[in-house]
Each structure stands twice: as C-alpha cells, then as structure tokens.
C-alpha cells in the first residue's frame, strides 16, 4: 500500500549534505533516507531496478542503526559501482535487513555528481513526530 507520508529531502550543511526521510514507519523513513542518499549522487528517477542486493547491519540504537544502514549502502555503491533507486527495509530490534534494487553506475546517463564518503552523526536523528510520521536524518560527508 502507498504510504502518503513517504518522502525525502536534502537539508543544508555547510560543506556537506543532510539527508532526511519521512515515512509512516521507522522502516519507511529509513527507505526514504536511502533515496535521499542516492539523490546526493544521481537523480533517483534515472536508476533502473535491474539488480537486487541484500544487506544487513546492526547497531545498539535506532540512530546508530540509521548511520549503519546508510554506510552499508555507501559500501555497496563503492565496491559494486552501483546506484540504487528502490529499497525495502525491515528492522528487528538492533538488527536491520534490507534489499536494494539498482544498476551499475553509468556515468553518461546518471551523471554522478559526487561520491559519498560516509554517514556522519551530525544532526543524526530518528524519531516519531507528533503527527505520527517517522523521520530519519543525518549529514553525509561528500
């Protein structure tokens, strides 16, 4: 079912970029934050979901888990030389497992702007807002 609160945005940080995802669930917010991460490099709409990659990571709390999730994607993008445009996340306690769909980076078509070095803990936040919408955000170093 479509999640009407699902969306992502970037926010300003002097030298780097903030990525922020919203969703009806924590998992949904994590998926949207991942899309925001992709959008740092390329336009997510240009990414075709041709290959599926399974990922997992863990951390002692939700916020570190968000950073771990984004860093797991940075790692997969770096070592597979892929970009991802669709995500499915499930979180069980401290454990996150996910699937990401994407394709090998095509410099001519994707026009990748910049590599992401990693997710930082600057402005790191995972929370459920009063409206019930989950927000997941942090600054990524580029």
């Amino acid at each position, binding site marked *: 079912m479509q999640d009407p609160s699902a969306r992502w945005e*970037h926010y*300003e*940080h*002097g*030298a*780097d*970029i903030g990525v922020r995802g919203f969703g009806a669930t924590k998992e949904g917010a994590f998926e949207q934050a991942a899309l925001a991460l992709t959008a740092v*490099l390329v336009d997510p709409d240009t990414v075709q979901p041709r290959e599926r990659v399974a990922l997992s990571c863990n*951390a*002692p709390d939700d*916020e*570190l888990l968000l*950073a*771990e999730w984004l*860093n797991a994607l*940075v*790692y997969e993008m*770096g*070592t597979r*030389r892929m970009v991802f445009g669709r995500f499915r996340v499930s979180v069980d306690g401290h454990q996150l497992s996910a699937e990401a769909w994407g394709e090998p*980076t095509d*410099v001519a078509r994707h*026009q*990748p*702007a*910049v*590599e992401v*070095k*990693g*997710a*930082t*803990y*600057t402005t*790191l936040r995972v929370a459920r807002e009063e409206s019930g919408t989950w927000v997941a955000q942090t*600054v990524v*170093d*580029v």
Partner: protein
Amino acid sequence: MDLNLLQRRSDYEWEIPQRDAMRVPATIYASEALMREMDHKVYEQAVNVAVLPGIVRASYAMPDAHWGYGFPIGGVAAFDPDAGGVVSAGGVGFDISCGVRCLHTGLVRDDIMKVQRELASILFQRIPAGVGSTGAIRLNERDMDEMLAGGAKWAVDRGWGVPEDLERVEEQGQMKHAKPGNVSAQAKKRQRDEMGTLGSGNHYLELQEVTAIYDAGIAEVFGLKQGDIVVMIHCGSRGLGHQIGTEFLKHMAIAAAQYGLVLPDRELACAPIKSEVGAEYLGAMRAAINCALANRQILTHLVRRAFADVLPHARLTLLYDVSHNTCKVEQHRSDSGVRELYVHRKGATRAFGPGHPDIPEPLRAAGQPVLIGGSMGTASYVLAGTKESEALAFSSACHGAGRAMSRHKAMKTWSGRQLVDDLAARGILVKSPAMRGVAEEAPGAYKDVAAVVDAADAAGLARKVARAEPLICIKG
C-alpha cells in the same frame, strides 16, 4: 558568527574564554570579515573540542574553518596521552590524509598553451576521475598490506616514481607504525580498484601558472619563479580511508561509555590514546595515511607519463606533499615543557617553521611548504611555515578556501556546462566526467581563498610565498 561572544586578542586572533566544561579556551584565527561570515557552528564545535580530556593549550580554528562533524573543518587540537588525552576519528575526518602535492615542471606558460588541449585530453584520459572510476592497478591481499605499510615508498619501490620524490613528502613518504592488520577487510575491498584514482567532490588535478611571488627569498628556496608551470594534485585515501573513518566513528561512539567518556555530542566520538580502541584506530589511520601517500605517488607517475607523450622535455619534480586530515605525534611546548602530543588537524595543514628537523634539508631554512588548494578556476597558494606558528597553533595553517554555499544551492545556481564554457573563455580548460559535479564545485560556492590566505599570513600561521592560477583542471 556573533563577535560579541568572543574576546578579540589581536586583529586576527579571537578567543572563546574557558568556561563550564571547557578544559582550555578556544582560539579562532581570522580577519574580522571572515569571522562575521563564519558559521556559528564553528563556535559550538570549537567549544565542544575544548571539553575533550587531555586537550592541551587550546582548541584552534583556522581562517577557513567551517561546520564539520564533531570537530570543525579547519580545526586543530593536541592531546597529551599522559593526561588522559584522546584520539578522535571525527577529529581526523573520513578522508584520512587528504592532501595536496605540488610538482615543478620546468616549463613556462607558452610551453603549455601550444599543447593545452592535447595535454588536457591526455591527462583526462590517463587520470581516473569521478564517481565509480577505477585505476589500472589491482592489489592482492599481500600487495595491499605492503602498500598500507609502505606508503609512497612502496609506490616508488614498484617503479611509480624515483627515490628523490620521497624526500619531499611528509614522513619521507612512509608513515611509521601503520598497522595494516587493523584495517578491516571491507576497507581493503573498497580500495581494491581505487589505487591511482582522483576521486570526486573538491578533488582535482591542475596545471597552474605562478602568477605572483610574495616572498622572493623563500620562493627561490622553493624553486618557484613568476611564470613557472606547476602541477597541483588534491586527493586523499579514497574508499579505504572513508571506510576506516566510518567504522571507527561507530567503535568509538559505542566504546566511549566503557572508557568513562562523557561527550557533549556523539559526533565527538573518541577513545583514550592509551586504550585498545585508540591504539587500534591509530594503527589503521596511519595505514590510511600511507594509502593516501601511495595514491598521490601513483597519480604523479600517471602525470609524468602523460607529459612524456606531449612534452617529453619536461622534468616533473616534487616541491612538496602535505596532508591536511591527520593525527600525528609531534614534540611541542606546553606549560610542563616539551611533550609528545597527538595533534589532530582536520582541514588544517602542518606548517613547521624554519629549521625544523622534519623539513627536507634543501628547504629547511625557509620553513615547511604549505600548499593551499583553491576551488576550481581560482588561485592556489604556496605558503611557508613560520617560527611563531608553533606557539599560535602547534605549527598549523589553513588548508583551502572552505565552502561558502551548500552543494544543493550551488547546483541550483549554476550550470556545469556554462561554467566550463566561462572558464574556457578565460583560458582555463576544465575536464570532468559529470557536469553536475562541476556545478556543485562552482568557484562562487567557495569563500575567497585569497582572504583566507591573507588572514593566515597576517595571523602569523604561515607566510605567503606564491600564487598559482589554473590553466588545465581535471575534476573528479
């Protein structure tokens, strides 16, 4: 930044007095104009660093300081291991040992302008640049460990350079006490295809013309004359360094409680120098320094090969190679005499003064060369370390222009193609695989590097020697 929050010590020195949990004051070196433009987050982050255990003298910020993660970018802080001092992954940054290398070419502007297009094309072909680019060198496990222990020396031993190159690199091209065994399999995997690559973002390789000499005596020692052509390479430890930074940020954040560290913010994640996690990080971080040194050495080799095809009479020799994201053990004066301190420089350049034994002998009397990269299409500067810099900021100076505008805003403001055309009209050829990347790196998105360098000079952190302006820019 609200200047009422600081005490002005001189025209270029601003102090945040010690208060609350701060163990030392914080000092920012900048002109009043740069201070007014500086992000308030630099104030907050400089204060937070002053809270960390074992910090000595002061938490410093350079004239190009801006909002970083944990430590400000342009931050300098030294810690005493015998006073509970810490080492911080965020205090070094993700791009460990990112730095600038400058090569003499023995050529002048006319030599380049005759072949500018051809040379730009061949450099762009030979230097892997941009997101996802790979180098021609593949390292097996053993090679990887040798590279991580050997740095630029390893690269020279492999034939990618000559032994004389090493004399002109910090640490003589090889960071000691590196522990390749402390580097995770993931970090090594991320580096597998990235040796001899430039990267993206603000990294570049430029051919520049020396367009001003400010100190003729030092310029002569450095071998720089008006009209000379130099090569500047700005890049770091690539995926390996980024992965080490990422992993240790988490290790340190989780281990902090175990070491009884109460941090004002998790992003200040650190560990005592004398702790298991601290020692592990130092070994891995030093291996990443070697990775960056090896990478810049391989890039030097690729540049030499490109020149050999187009301008075979050019002789490319090193002026110097500096790293501006490091933590290094150095002897410094403190209240209790000369001590061995762990000096973090995050977006700050080491700037040893004249006579320092770690400066290569032919340059020693002049002070260490300090290489300041500009943004795309703007000038770069060569400075020299001063005697007084030791007392001012543990012999440190600025590292670049520093961003004035976010990438997001830059992308909305400029078109990459238009920028390339505008720069071409000014005689600067820009080659890049991605026009969006060019837009995000627009010269106008950065602070005025000249103002930053003038402030560093006026504050006494380093002395201005020469300015160089680009003719060819290979942009990642």
